[in-house]
């Protein structure tokens, strides 16, 4: 039983890491209806920029701020060069544009900073803590704390600031928001920049765990099933979805993995998500849209 709990908690905490990527998705999806496949590439770009600055002797906070500024520039460029020309196009077109964007961002990150693996030490030791017999990773707890802080900051941002209010207005009804004078382009830049911040934090946490390297951009693939399970339009859904995917993935790996010969964690979340699609297409927290004709 203790072992089961350990696996479950380990899975839940790993799920928090998935949720982080998924939150970046949800933000952009809500504000601009774009399914941003480039979120993974942004994670890579942010982490690589931060680490490379650090290796050149730039202090932590300055590197953090410079990377953040870079992500803001990226957001500006994306709005001007990709989103604005593609306004009013189909969601599938926008999605494919973000595939192109992912290629550009990955290529640029590696062209600028090289393709070798960088170590990243955030000063948190990855040793398990003993909670009355349960071993829980200290690093995972830290990551969960970071995620909680991030969600808190984001909800303050959305509920207490003007730009947050405009963002919610745009998410609710784009046309009505424009009609009352909200400038769409500014909201988009803001939301992409915030997604950039989320990408940076995700990149730091994932990078500290896996090393900063190309495979970071693949964390995007972990986020997709999370979104299906939790629904595309709710940050809370992204968190719960991440927890469900993380926990069930670990449990399946431990208990069903041996039967199938292991290595199932790559596809298990997708099969889980497929089942969700068949049973509850809008996810746990999404709303089913009614077609008006």
């Amino acid at each position, binding site marked *: 039983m203790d072992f089961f709990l350990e696996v479950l908690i380990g899975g839940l905490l790993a799920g928090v890491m998935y949720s982080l990527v998924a939150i970046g998705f949800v933000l952009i999806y809500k504000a601009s209806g774009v399914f941003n496949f480039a979120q993974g590439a942004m994670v890579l770009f942010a982490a690589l920029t931060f680490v490379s600055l650090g290796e050149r002797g730039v202090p932590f906070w300055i590197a953090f701020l410079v990377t953040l500024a870079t992500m803001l520039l990226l957001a500006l460029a994306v709005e001007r060069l990709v989103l604005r020309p593609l306004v009013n196009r189909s969601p599938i*077109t926008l999605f494919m544009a973000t*595939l192109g964007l992912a*290629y*550009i961002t*990955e*290529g640029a990150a590696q062209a600028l900073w090289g393709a070798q693996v960088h170590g990243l030490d955030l000063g948190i030791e990855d040793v398990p803590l003993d909670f009355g017999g349960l071993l829980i990773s200290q690093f995972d707890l830290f990551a969960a704390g970071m995620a909680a802080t991030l969600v808190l900051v984001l909800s303050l941002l959305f509920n207490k600031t003007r730009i947050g209010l405009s963002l919610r207005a745009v998410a609710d009804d784009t046309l009505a928001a424009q009609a009352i004078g909200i400038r769409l382009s500014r909201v988009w830049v803001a939301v992409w920049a915030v997604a950039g911040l989320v990408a940076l934090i995700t990149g730091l946490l994932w990078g500290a765990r896996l090393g900063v390297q190309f495979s970071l951009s693949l964390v995007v693939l972990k986020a*997709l099933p999370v979104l299906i399970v939790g629904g595309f339009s709710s940050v809370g859904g992204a968190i719960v979805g991440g927890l469900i995917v993380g926990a069930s993935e670990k449990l399946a790996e431990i208990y069903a993995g041996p039967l199938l010969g292991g290595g199932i964690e790559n*596809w298990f979340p997708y099969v889980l998500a*497929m089942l969700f699609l*068949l049973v509850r297409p809008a996810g746990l927290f999404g709303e089913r849209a009614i077609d008006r004709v």
Partner: protein
Amino acid sequence: MLYSETGQFSTHYAADRRLFRLRQDRLGLGLLLAFAFAAVPQIGNDYWFSAILIPFLVLSLAGLGLNLLTGYAGQLSLGSAAFMAAGAFAAYNFLLRIEGLPLLAGLALGGLVAALLSVAFGLPSLRIKGFYLIVSTLAAQFLLPWALVKFGWFSNYNASGVIGAPPLEVCGLDLASPAGRYVLTLGIVVALAFLARNIVHSELGRNWMAVRDMDTAAAVIGIPLAKTKLLAFAISGFYLGVAGALWAFTYLGTVEPHGFDLTRSFQVLFIIIIGGMGSILGNFLGAAFIVLFPLLLSNLAGLVPGGLIDPGQLENIQKMIFGALIVVFLIREPEGLARLWQHFRARVRRWPLRY
């Protein structure tokens, strides 16, 4: 007036059904095919066959498969490579385990297995729309290659999951030479392209486009949505499966499941974005671009003195250019190279007049 249309009227509906309405177009296609089948095997060299022409043809076929599903029926898929893998490994096993099975029959059976799997992963399309579907197709992308590696039976217990090509023989004709493999691939690709052209001009093709453009209206006029979508998955899966088998047998000779990873699926998707969605010709243009462009780029890089651009950097630059091209095409020419070709043709038809 090279392209005079004068006097070419359709006097029967049958005349409108033809591949091309204009005599010049029909003549052009005939000459092109005659050149490809008769002249190229004589004048081409092994490098051209193995490094350019065969991959071009196979990727065109894969693009065609995805285009039927995404460009015509509007169902987005990121799992093309998984169905290519399924086709390759299924064809390999049929030819390995059934004594005396003809090569073409093995390819067709491989295609059928891929078609069935494609339908299975297409089932969620009956309940969901748009990009939600990429999750289902990604499930195929991760599940199928995993199974092919995990279960040794699929690769006849080869330690690293590699399969080799069966004897390439059609009607007693040995086609194992590069020129032979080229002719075999060309024959299959041309035949399937004609078939695809007929399908998209038939009722089924119209139903696909109707579902793509507005599915509620399609249901209201009596188009059976489930059947139409699943047929798109099936036929697309068949084309991808045959393409995968050709990729393994006539292009590479040996192949492992990792050769059909997500990157390959993206490559096929890029072919149809650049070539033109909802176009048969576009697949060939897109595949030609994707095969030739890296060659062109590395040759250009070779011109830069002193080895300033190393291969790793070249790959990054190539990636950025591809990404940028995707975005530019989606913004400026969503119908891809095929549309540019039509513009060009329209000018030729008017030539020498300008208006």
